[in-house]
C-alpha cells in the first residue's frame, strides 16, 4: 500500500495522457473527448479517494463537483474574469460545503451514508435549479467563458486553442493526482486504508475514525470540486445537472468499472465510460438501456473492475509460474 502502482504502469499512464490528443483523434475521437476523459477521470479518482481508500460510499459527489463548476462560472461572470481565481473560488465553495455537511454525516455508515449523501447533494441541485436570478436556473449559467491564462511573460489562449486547453487540464490533473498520491502514501493515508480495512480495529488502535473519515470526505470533495471547475471551463457553461444524483452515480460506476483498489483504476473507468457512452449514444437513441445494462454487467461480472481483473490475472500467472 505504500507503493500505489507499479512504476511501469504509472509511466505508461502518463505517456498515454501526454499523447492523448494525437491518438484520440487518430482513432476517430476528438480533442474535446480527451479533455472530458481527463476531467471526469479526475472526478472519479477524487471519489475513489473516499470510496476505494477509505471504504466510504458517497453517492452525492456530484454536488461538490457542481459547486466547483458554479463557483468558477459565477466568479468569472460576476466578479473577476480570471480563470485561476475562478477555480480557487470554485474549489473553496465545494470544499467548505463538504466540510459543513460532512459533520452531519460522518457517523452514518454503508447504505445510509450513501442515502444521506444523495439527499444532501440534491439540496445543492435544487438551489442551482431554483435560484434562477443568480444561477440561471434550469437554463444554466451562461454568458461567461474561460479566460486566457496570464503567466506574466506570456498569455496562454485556453479558449480558442483546444490543445492548449487540454494541456492546461493535464497540468492541473497532474498536480491534483500527485497530491492525492502523496496523501495516500503518507501515514495519514495509511490510517484511511486502515479504516477501510477494519473500522473497529482502526478505532481501537487509536484512530479517531469519524474525524479521519471527515477529513477524507473533505479532501475527496476538494479534488472533486477541482474537477468540477475544470468541467465548467471545458463547457463554458454550467447547468444544474452537473450536480444531480445521476452524475454521482456515473462517478461511482467509473470508479468501480476501472477498479476501486487501483490508483489509476477510476481514470481507466472514466475513459471507458465516456468513450462508450459517446459511441453508443451516437448509434442508438436507446443508449440508456445500454448504459443501464453496462451497470448491471459490471456489478454482476466485473465487481473488481478492469484493474482488479488485470491484477488478479497477474497474480494467477505468478502462482502458476511458481508452481
Amino acid at each position, binding site marked *: 500500500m505504500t507503493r500505489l502502482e507499479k512504476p511501469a504502469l504509472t509511466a505508461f499512464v502518463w505517456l498515454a495522457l501526454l499523447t492523448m490528443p494525437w491518438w484520440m483523434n487518430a482513432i476517430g475521437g476528438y480533442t474535446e473527448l480527451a479533455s472530458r476523459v481527463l476531467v471526469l477521470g479526475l472526478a472519479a479518482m477524487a471519489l475513489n479517494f473516499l*470510496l476505494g481508500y477509505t471504504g466510504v*460510499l458517497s*453517492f452525492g459527489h456530484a454536488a461538490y463537483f457542481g459547486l466547483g463548476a458554479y463557483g468558477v462560472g459565477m466568479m468569472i461572470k460576476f466578479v473577476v474574469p480570471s480563470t485561476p481565481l475562478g477555480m480557487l473560488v470554485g474549489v473553496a465553495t465545494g470544499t467548505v460545503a463538504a466540510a459543513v455537511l460532512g459533520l*452531519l*454525516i460522518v*457517523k*452514518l*455508515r*454503508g*447504505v*445510509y451514508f*450513501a*442515502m*444521506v449523501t*444523495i*439527499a*444532501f447533494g*440534491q*439540496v445543492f441541485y*435544487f*438551489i442551482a*435549479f*431554483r*435560484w*434562477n436570478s443568480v444561477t440561471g436556473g434550469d437554463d444554466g449559467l451562461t454568458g461567461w467563458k474561460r479566460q486566457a491564462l496570464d503567466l506574466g511573460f506570456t498569455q496562454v489562449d485556453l479558449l480558442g486553442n483546444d490543445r492548449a486547453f487540454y494541456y492546461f487540464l493535464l497540468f492541473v490533473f497532474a498536480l491534483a493526482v500527485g497530491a492525492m498520491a502523496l496523501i495516500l502514501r503518507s501515514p495519514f493515508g495509511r490510517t484511511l486504508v486502515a479504516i477501510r480495512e477494519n473500522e473497529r480495529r482502526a478505532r481501537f488502535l487509536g484512530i479517531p475514525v469519524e474525524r479521519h473519515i471527515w477529513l477524507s470526505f473533505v479532501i475527496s470533495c476538494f479534488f472533486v470540486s477541482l474537477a468540477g471547475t475544470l468541467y465548467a471551463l471545458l463547457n463554458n457553461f454550467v447547468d444544474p445537472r452537473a450536480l444531480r*444524483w*445521476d452524475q454521482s*452515480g456515473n462517478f*461511482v*460506476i467509473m470508479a*468501480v468499472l476501472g477498479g476501486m483498489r487501483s490508483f489509476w483504476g477510476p481514470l481507466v473507468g472514466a475513459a471507458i465510460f465516456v468513450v462508450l457512452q459517446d459511441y453508443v449514444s451516437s448509434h442508438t437513441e*436507446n*443508449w*440508456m*438501456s445500454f*448504459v*443501464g*445494462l*453496462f*451497470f*448491471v454487467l*459490471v*456489478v*454482476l461480472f466485473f*465487481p473488481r473492475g478492469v484493474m482488479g481483473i488485470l491484477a488478479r490475472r497477474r497474480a494467477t500467472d505468478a502462482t502458476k509460474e511458481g508452481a
Partner: protein
Amino acid sequence: MTQLILFNVFNGLIIGAFYALMALGLSLILNLSGVINFAHGGFLALGAYIAYSLSPHIGFWGALVVAPVATAVVGLVVERVLIRRVYGRDPLYSLLLTFGLAYIFEDVLRYIWGAQSVPFPIPPALASPLSPEYFFLTGYRLFMVALVAAAVVALFVILNRTKLGIRIRAGTQDLETVNVLGVNVRILRNLNFGLGTYLAGLAGVLAAGMLGLQPTIGTSLIMPSFVAIIVGGLGSLPGTLLGGLLIGVASGLTTMFFPSATEAVMYVMMGLVLLVRPRGLLGEEGRVQ
C-alpha cells in the same frame, strides 16, 4: 389567509400520503434486504403504463387491481434474477445495480409506450371536486388518500398478523436468527421485494390519474421518498409514513410562502432531523451505524 393555510395543509397531507406510499415500498425492501431500490420509480412507471394499457379492456377499477399485481410479478422476477445476486455484498453494488435498472426501465418504457405523454382516464365520478368551495378535495384525491390509508392498514395487518409478515418483521430485526429458525430467507426476501414493488405499482396507477403519464413519471418522486425514509427513521415503517406526511405538508406550506424553496425545504428538514436525532424521528437506535 387561514383558509389558504388550511387548504395547503390538507393538500400537503394528500401529496404526503402519496410520497408515503412510495416510500413504504422502498422502506420494506431496504429494511429486510439492505437494498436501496433506485429502480423504484421505474416500477412505479411500469405499474402506471400497465394500467394504461389494461384500462380500455378491464376499466379503471380492473386496472387498479391487476396492474400492481403485474408490477409485483415483474418485481419478483427482477429480484430472483438480479437483485438476489448482490445480497450480502457491499451496498455499493446494490446501488449500482438498481441505478442501472432505473436507466433500463426508463428506456424500455419509452421504447414500448413512446416518449410522449399518454392520457390515462379516471372514472368521471372521481374526476370532479366535491364542492366548489373545497375544490381541491376532488373525488380522486380523496379516493387516493382512502386507498393509501387502506394500503397502509393492510400492510400493517400483513406485517403483524400473517406468517409472512411476522417473518419479514423478524428478519428486519435479526436476519440470522430467522435463518436459523428454518425460515427460507431467499423466499422471504423475494416475497418482500414483491410486496414493495406492489406498492410501487399501486402508487403508479394512482399517479397516472393525477399526473401526465410518461416514462420519467417516477423519477421526480423517488427523492422525496428517500427523504421521507430518512426523516421518519431508518427501519421504522410508521416513521416512513410519518416522514412522508410531514414533507408533504412542509412542501405544501412552503409553496405558499416561499415557492422557490418548495423542494429544498424537505432537505432542510432532513438536515435538522439528522442534526438533532440522527436515527430519524421513529428510527431504532443503532440502526444507522
